[in-house]
């Protein structure tokens, strides 16, 4: 069994390129057949918000790539429930990704405990 990796998105787009650069790592790890979980916590849930138009800032829109994650074999896409609540967001406002699930912080905790690698940027 290949080592597993959990990629943690914890920052808002587009003030930093952390989201985009983590996404690139996720896609590359998928090409190596590593089991991958994309976990969105804290302000990272804003990465998935629908209707982003960073083009008006001349920033490339990477949010569409999140939708394509299942095509790359990344099927565990998890969003922290508490963060959605805290920021007055609901799942319907997020980009539609097959298999996207919300999870509690304690579930996220055990998921992180069981991953071989955890990356944030």
């Amino acid at each position, binding site marked *: 069994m290949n080592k597993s990796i959990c990629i943690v998105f*914890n920052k808002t787009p587009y003030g930093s390129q952390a989201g985009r650069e983590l996404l690139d790592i996720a896609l590359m790890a998928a090409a190596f057949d590593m089991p991958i979980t994309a976990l969105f916590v*804290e302000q990272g849930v804003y990465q998935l918000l629908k209707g982003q138009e960073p083009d008006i800032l001349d920033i490339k829109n990477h949010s569409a790539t999140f939708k394509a994650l299942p095509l790359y074999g990344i099927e565990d896409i998890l969003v922290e429930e508490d963060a959605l609540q805290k920021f007055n967001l609901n799942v319907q406002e997020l980009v539609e990704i097959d298999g996207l699930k919300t999870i509690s912080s304690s579930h996220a905790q055990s998921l*992180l*405990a069981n991953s*071989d*690698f955890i990356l944030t*940027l």
Partner: protein
Amino acid sequence: MKSLYIINQPQKLNQALPFISEQDGILLIEDAVVVATYGSVQANHQTLYVLVEDLIARGLKDKVGVEQWNLVDYPQFVELTLQYDKSVSWL
């Protein structure tokens, strides 16, 4: 698996805490070492470490008053990364 959470900015500790399990360790480095001088932290049984070189550099070594914090140097930092199954830098 036991994880060593490495925190390098003070505000990141509280952000990371909800995701850190009881059996994990937390190591403060760089600017985050100031947190060890604040008094006690609402940690949940995790073992707490702070990098002594980063405290000394900031003139803070004698300001870690609470026994909650274990002072470690770089050789011990490396040992901790082996003692725990993995390291997580919560950036």
